[in-house]
């Protein structure tokens, strides 16, 4: 049964985009990723409007004090099993905001991350590679 479930999750990962205090560059690149040019629907990836429908959360941005409780709440609302994929270097380490009074550290202090996609912003091809790697680890 577990194999069947994993097969289903691998073939049809629905993504929900969470932008937590990002500069919006990574958000724009994610939007580009979902255009017909890169055609991620081949992999079954569909952008959904509600975290309750999501299997993968694409998080962007350096997490800050104000958005931290909200991002945690979105994670709680997503039905498990779910992947959390960090897009952009700000999610890996605070990048250029590392000395900020408001940045509270990289995501893996608070959420179980499945993959990081570094880049500022990462190219859509890099994002596809990251998502595919995260799915193959399942």
């Amino acid at each position, binding site marked *: 049964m577990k194999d069947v479930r994993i097969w289903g999750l691998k073939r049809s990962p629905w993504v929900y985009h969470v932008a937590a205090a990002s500069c919006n560059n990574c958000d724009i690149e994610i939007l580009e990723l979902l255009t017909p040019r890169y055609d991620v629907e081949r992999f079954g990836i569909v952008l959904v409007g509600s975290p309750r429908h999501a299997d993968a959360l694409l998080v962007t941005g350096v997490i800050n*004090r*104000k958005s931290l409780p909200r991002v945690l709440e979105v994670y709680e609302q997503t039905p498990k099993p779910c992947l959390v994929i960090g897009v952009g270097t700000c999610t890996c380490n605070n990048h250029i905001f590392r000395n900020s*009074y408001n940045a509270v550290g990289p995501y893996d202090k608070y959420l179980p991350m499945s993959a990081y996609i570094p880049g500022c912003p990462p190219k859509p091809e890099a994002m596809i590679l990251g998502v595919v790697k995260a799915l193959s680890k399942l």
Partner: protein
Amino acid sequence: MREAEAGLRALVHEVEVYEHNPKRLYIRVPRERITDAAKYLHRERGMRLSTCTGIDTRDGLEVLYHFSEDSTGTMYTLKVLAPKDDPSIESQAPWLPAADWIEREMHELLGIDFPGHPNLVPLLTSDTDWEQGRYPLRRDYERRSEQHEE
């Protein structure tokens, strides 16, 4: 001399005007006359408030009000200086809604007080995880000390 500049000098005698380039004027105004000067530029000259800037300088905390004269494309910036031990400038928010949130931001990040502001509550910093009263944009704010460690 421009009409607006002449009118302003007639209204507030103690201004110092610095012309950075023909489209950019910096006008230093004494603290107690800022409301009169801003009202003149906005109401009688029809300029719109573009934004405000708050700076921590050697001589004190400075607030700049950038008024844009859209018909000529000229920017008139009013500079007001407040000493560090008494950083308060009369609020423009009661008559100029554009200044409302900007003054809230300057209050919570720089510590400038705006008496007369209708709603001087924090705007940007976290509601759960931040003690008010620390002013991160001041030059003497220690970023890596235990003052800011979570």
